[in-house]
């Protein structure tokens, strides 16, 4: 990218703002003391500084500032700064990067950049979006990336804003999603305003999320910012994709730099490194294992990063006629393909297992019971050979345990799986003999037959159970939705495990963008804002984004609904309103039974249910400008409600249908 050659020009009239303010304060105080009329308008008992205030606007403060500055400054408009402020330079840098949006909850520590983005930057590329909570804004960036492949920036207040955002950063970290975190902070105590601004400053604010970010910096100059911002972008977008953090000095944002400080200001060009690929020998050895296997199984979690990655996995699986166990971190494999598997049955039968970007290799080939006397051990047959391909082996931190338990393998390829798949495909092709092809064809026929038997009426029969039940079953909900969306350009921007994965049992997922996987770190509160972020990415393609929204997750930060309404983000949210934290209900049930204490709803409802009162999600959404329908508990009312909501979403607005559902 070209350097911004205009960005180092400064106004020759620039004034050093710190010296300017200091002088104004001294002169202003003297003037007030000398002028009884002006002194009389000051609030009683308040020591009002002549420095620009972030206090609530009032006539007395305004007049006090006017009074002090009107008699003391040499310039015609002494209360203003002249020249290009530091935050304008920051905008110049940000504009060279491919960042479509910056999501923020407004904050004094970022006010300089905020003002520059919306005025100097014209509020385009990037456009500033409003979030009601930094956790939601960060989760929006998480969801946006998984659809667009481009990172967003999450601009937060120093300290408390980042504390709010922390869980969403952890989710993004575990899910290998790059979100560019930016916060305001002032290191120099003599320039921090007292009270709240100082409460919200820190010596090392990045420390609180450093264990789950890939890189951070607190630049000390504008040139330093330019280099660090570009570096942060580059690091975030190099697999493994991860969040990064840049800390912005408040004074650096607000003040006009000395001419000498920006005389050689330049913005570095960014070049994203090619993702690491597997070693040739290790890849060939893996190919030999796969070709010679009796029942090879591919296991994918975040194997695909793009449509091309998904297609490469299909090619490899078909080449080998190997089942693909999709753990669902991404849209890895078409769910109606005869080689698509969910669950561990295929792994139990395998003689070779290849894990592709797995979160948990140990948990893939072992089992541990959640019982009063836990048992654990391998689920694979003795002698099964294991291969891991992923970046987990080459990038790991110590504190948070997202790396899971240690699993010995026969071959460990520390590389990006998607980038390595083409090499593996070629290696497999080069090693195939006619004998191998005959075995593979026979295996493929068995798998096609097994798939046909499993699909023959089984999903339909299962869906028919409780078809007319109220609360409404997940199967009925999913079937009603499928009927209305199957001819649309649709995408599911939420998980579906909470309704027993019925969309994956009924809907036909074929494209990478049709599914965004899960939250990574499993932190609740991700679902709604990530769906809004994903829908924002789908908006430019005119796709129908669908969010099956858990009620408990929604209540963490429902303000994301307002963001969707305010920014006209078309998103269909269908509430899975089962009125409880049902996973916790089941945990409590388990403990009561283990301890022989009996299990009665008078007790298990304590701190597990969302009732008394029930949440009216339609009213909640309506209050934030989201068109809403419901609550609906009669399955026969579903289709017309969904049809109305889809029409609204296709018109460019968000809509919500509150559906009272079975627990799972």
């Amino acid at each position, binding site marked *: 990218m070209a350097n911004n050659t205009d960005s180092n020009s400064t106004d020759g009239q620039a004034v050093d703002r710190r010296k300017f303010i200091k002088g104004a304060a001294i002169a202003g105080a003297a003037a007030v003391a000398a002028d009884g009329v002006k002194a009389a308008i000051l609030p009683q008992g308040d020591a009002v500084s002549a420095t620009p205030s972030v206090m609530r606007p009032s006539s007395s403060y305004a007049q006090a500032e006017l009074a002090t500055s009107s008699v003391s400054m040499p310039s015609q408009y002494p209360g203003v700064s002249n020249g290009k402020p530091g935050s304008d330079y920051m905008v110049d840098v940000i504009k060279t990067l491919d960042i479509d949006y910056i999501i923020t909850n407004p904050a004094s520590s970022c006010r300089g950049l905020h003002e520059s983005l919306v005025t100097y930057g014209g509020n385009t590329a990037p456009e500033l979006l409003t979030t009601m909570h930094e956790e939601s804004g960060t989760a929006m960036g998480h969801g946006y990336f998984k659809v667009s492949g481009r990172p967003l920036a999450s601009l937060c207040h120093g300290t408390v804003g980042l504390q709010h955002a922390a869980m969403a950063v952890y989710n993004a970290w575990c899910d290998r999603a790059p979100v560019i975190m930016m916060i305001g902070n002032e290191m120099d105590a003599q320039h921090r305003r007292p009270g709240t601004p100082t409460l919200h400053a820190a010596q090392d604010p990045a420390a609180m999320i450093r264990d789950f970010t890939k890189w951070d910096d607190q630049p000390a100059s504008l040139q330093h910012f330019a280099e660090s911002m570009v570096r942060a972008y580059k690091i975030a977008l190099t697999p493994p994709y991860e969040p990064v953090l840049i800390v912005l000095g408040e004074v650096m944002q607000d003040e006009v730099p000395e001419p000498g400080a920006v005389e050689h200001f330049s913005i570095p060009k960014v070049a994203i490194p090619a993702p690491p690929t597997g070693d040739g020998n290790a890849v060939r050895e893996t190919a030999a294992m796969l070709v010679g296997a009796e029942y090879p199984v591919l296991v994918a979690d975040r194997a695909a990063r793009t449509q091309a990655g998904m297609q490469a996995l299909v090619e490899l699986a078909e080449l080998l006629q190997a089942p693909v166990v999709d753990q669902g971190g991404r849209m890895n494999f078409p769910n109606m393909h005869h080689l698509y598997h969910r669950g561990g049955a295929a792994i139990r039968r395998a003689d070779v297992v290849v894990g592709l970007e797995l979160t948990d290799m140990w948990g893939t080939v072992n089992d541990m019971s959640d019982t009063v*006397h836990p048992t654990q051990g391998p689920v694979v047959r003795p002698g099964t050979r294991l291969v891991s391909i992923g970046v987990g082996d080459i990038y790991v931190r110590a504190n948070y345990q997202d790396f899971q338990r240690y699993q010995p393998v026969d071959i460990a390829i520390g590389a990006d799986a998607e980038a390595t798949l083409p090499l593996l495909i070629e290696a497999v092709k080069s090693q195939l003999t006619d004998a191998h092809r005959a075995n593979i064809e026979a295996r493929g026929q068995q798998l096609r037959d097994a798939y046909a038997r499993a699909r023959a009426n089984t999903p339909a029969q299962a869906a*028919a159970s409780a078809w007319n039940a109220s609360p409404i079953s997940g199967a009925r909900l999913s*079937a009603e939705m499928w009927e209305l969306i199957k001819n649309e350009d649709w995408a599911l921007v939420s998980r579906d495990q909470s309704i027993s994965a019925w969309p994956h049992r009924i809907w036909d997922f074929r494209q990478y963008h049709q599914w965004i996987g899960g939250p990574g770190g499993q932190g609740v509160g991700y679902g709604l804002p990530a769906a809004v972020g994903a829908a924002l990415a789908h908006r430019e393609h005119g796709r129908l984004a669908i969010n099956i929204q858990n009620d408990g997750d929604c209540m963490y930060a429902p303000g994301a609904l307002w963001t969707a309404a305010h920014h006209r983000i078309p998103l269909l949210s269908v509430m899975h309103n089962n009125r409880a934290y049902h996973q916790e209900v089941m945990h409590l049930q388990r403990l009561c039974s283990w301890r022989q204490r009996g299990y009665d709803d008078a007790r298990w409802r304590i701190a597990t249910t969302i009732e008394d009162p029930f949440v009216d999600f339609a009213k909640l959404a309506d209050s934030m400008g989201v068109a809403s329908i419901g609550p609906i508990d009669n399955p026969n009312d579903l289709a017309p409600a969904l049809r109305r909501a889809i029409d609204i979403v296709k018109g460019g607005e968000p809509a919500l249908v509150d559906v009272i559902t079975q627990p*799972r």
Partner: protein
Amino acid sequence: MRSILRLAAVAAIAAPVLVAATAALAADAEAGREAYERVGCYTCHGYEGQGAGTGPKLAPDPLPYAALSNFVRQTSGAMPPFTPAVLPEEDLQNIYTYLQSIPQPPDPGDVPLLQDIQ
């Protein structure tokens, strides 16, 4: 004629017994439904025993009572055991009666939305 009268007499005596038995069964089914919800069976298996990702289908056509009871009492797997101290025998029998009372679902072939699902 005598046979008919005898049959009528038997029927006259048996009818109230059958009615009472049916009423008792209904009462047990209702008590079973109440126990099924109170104990929380529905959280994993659904309100109508249809099954979910968290627990298998229980109804209609539940397992024989002995098999169901044995599993409920003895399991050491993902589902916790419900011993008589936790789930009295009468409650379990009522739950079983409730599961038996759940009607057959519609034939998928008769449900337009399910006809294209393979």
